[in-house]
């Protein structure tokens, strides 16, 4: 925008041949009078006395208000143009701040507009002072904020929708976790039964709370004299593994009631899993130890068989420890003609039988992440004073906690034994 000195001629600026067309249009616009600009500006203008009485107001604002100039000037105060809420805000915040600071800008208020409607506006006011600094009048500009208000309402609606979606997602997630927890608990006994003359203890370490684990165990009566137990590990994790765990658990229980011979029970499970899964190409299998307890006074006969599972450990009352090896026992469910290996032992007072899953023995320990291994477990059991199943499980729980993130798999422990005659002093783990 330039008004060049050499374009001047008597009578003021004139369009000359030297000006091109856009400059000519621009000059025409500048001829728009200041009065015209004030009256028809794209925003409302008004000036009020310091008490708020309207002294001057432009046509744009009068049109918005649906009022005539003589109705307003000298008769109404600025606050009278506002809705009740706007007036309240004007009195409590707007006017005091304006008087304090001499200006206030971008305040959202609502005008009582033509036709009884409300017009959202953004108001900026400034106090005009005299030469001595004394306040003389207030100049106010009023911007139509309908579009902006609609945009804000849209944003608010969007935020409410997002919040609702988040609430819904959280509720869904909670429900899902609850379902997972119920399913997980259905894979394990809620509490071990009380077996007369025997002590039993168990522990389940979950590597991931979101993933259904594949480890399982159980202890249940066969008849008046004998009890059955099992502990195992299904390959994989998640819902598919949990389905295999559920099938495995119920098959073992049902098979045990039909014929509790451990090898027979494992063969039944093998047939069920092999028939159910291998034919579909979705190879699913498990490893398990199944056994029968026959308590007789001071001793308890244990018959068990293993299918591909780490060896069961016995902590003897004399402070030694040994594995009940079952060489050649195969993974269960993979081959139609799998072989399972039986073994037996007798528990005396103070002896403890320990079943575990390979989360324990395959844990990685130390800075070099070395395999914890079966030998270390044997040594651990041999160095603990034999104090019964609960004490051993408590000690192992402490051991597992010490593995930290070297323990990245689910781990199940089940210990069974005949308590010593003297009350065993529970040993602190550490």
């Amino acid at each position: 925008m330039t008004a060049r000195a050499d374009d001047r001629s008597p009578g003021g600026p004139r369009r000359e041949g030297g000006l091109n067309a856009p400059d000519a249009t621009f000059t025409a616009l500048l001829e728009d009078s200041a009065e015209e600009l004030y009256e028809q500006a794209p925003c409302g203008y008004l000036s009020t006395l310091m008490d708020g009485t309207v002294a001057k107001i432009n046509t744009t604002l009068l049109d918005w208000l649906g009022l005539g100039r003589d109705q307003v000037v000298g008769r109404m105060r600025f606050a009278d143009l506002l809705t009740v809420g706007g007036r309240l805000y004007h009195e409590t915040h707007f006017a005091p701040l304006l008087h304090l600071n001499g200006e206030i800008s971008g305040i959202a208020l609502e005008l009582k507009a033509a036709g009884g409607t409300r017009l959202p506006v953004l108001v900026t006011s400034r106090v005009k002072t005299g030469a001595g600094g004394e306040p003389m009048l207030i100049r106010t500009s009023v911007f139509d904020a309908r579009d902006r208000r609609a945009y804000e309402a849209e944003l608010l609606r969007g935020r409410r929708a997002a919040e609702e979606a988040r609430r819904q997602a959280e509720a869904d997630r909670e429900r899902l976790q609850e379902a997972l927890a119920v399913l997980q608990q259905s894979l394990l006994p809620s509490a071990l039964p009380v077996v007369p003359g025997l002590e039993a203890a168990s522990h389940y370490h979950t590597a991931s709370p979101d993933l259904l684990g594949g480890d399982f165990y159980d202890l249940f009566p066969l008849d008046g004299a004998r009890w059955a137990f099992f502990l195992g590990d299904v390959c994989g994790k998640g819902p598919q593994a949990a389905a295999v765990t559920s099938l495995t658990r119920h098959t073992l229980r049902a098979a045990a009631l039909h014929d509790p011979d451990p090898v027979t029970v494992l063969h039944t499970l093998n047939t069920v899993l092999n028939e159910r899964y291998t034919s579909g190409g979705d190879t699913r299998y498990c490893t398990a130890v199944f056994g029968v307890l026959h308590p007789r006074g001071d001793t308890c006969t244990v018959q068990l068989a293993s299918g591909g599972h780490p060896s069961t450990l016995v902590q003897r009352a004399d402070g030694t420890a040994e594995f009940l090896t079952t060489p050649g026992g195969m993974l269960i469910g993979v081959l139609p003609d799998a072989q399972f290996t039986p073994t037996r032992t007798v528990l005396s007072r103070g002896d403890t039988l320990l079943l575990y899953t390979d989360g324990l023995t395959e844990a990685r320990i130390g800075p070099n992440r070395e395999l914890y291994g079966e030998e270390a477990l044997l040594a651990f059991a041999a160095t603990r004073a034999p104090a019964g199943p609960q004490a051993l499980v408590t000690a192992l729980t402490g051991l597992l906690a010490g593995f930290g993130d070297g323990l990245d798999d689910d781990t199940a422990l089940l210990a069974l034994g005949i308590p010593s005659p003297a009350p065993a002093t529970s040993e602190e783990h550490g």
Partner: protein
Amino acid sequence: MNPLTITTRDAATGPVLEIAGDLDHHTAPGLREAVDTLPLAGGQLLVLDLARLDFCDSSGITVLLAARNVAVGHGARIALAAVPSNTARILGIVGLDRVFTIHPDTATAVLRS
């Protein structure tokens, strides 16, 4: 974490798959696919050479079993060669050392077939 690479070559007795890297939940499907698409004929020997296998978890064991099922389905046989000690230990625990024929290396596997 090492990626899994599978190199296939033909011996006089049948295909030899050299498996290198980690065989786990993420990579096992790759081996499964390689085995499924092998042109395997009845009477042949499928050798899985594990000399450069760095890691094998239960998903790996599963796919080895799947390979065995594929071989048996074709009327072929399967052998493992150069099984790393940790994998051999796990195969022993789960009784699969009696299911798979295991050779110290591929040459022996091919010779003894």
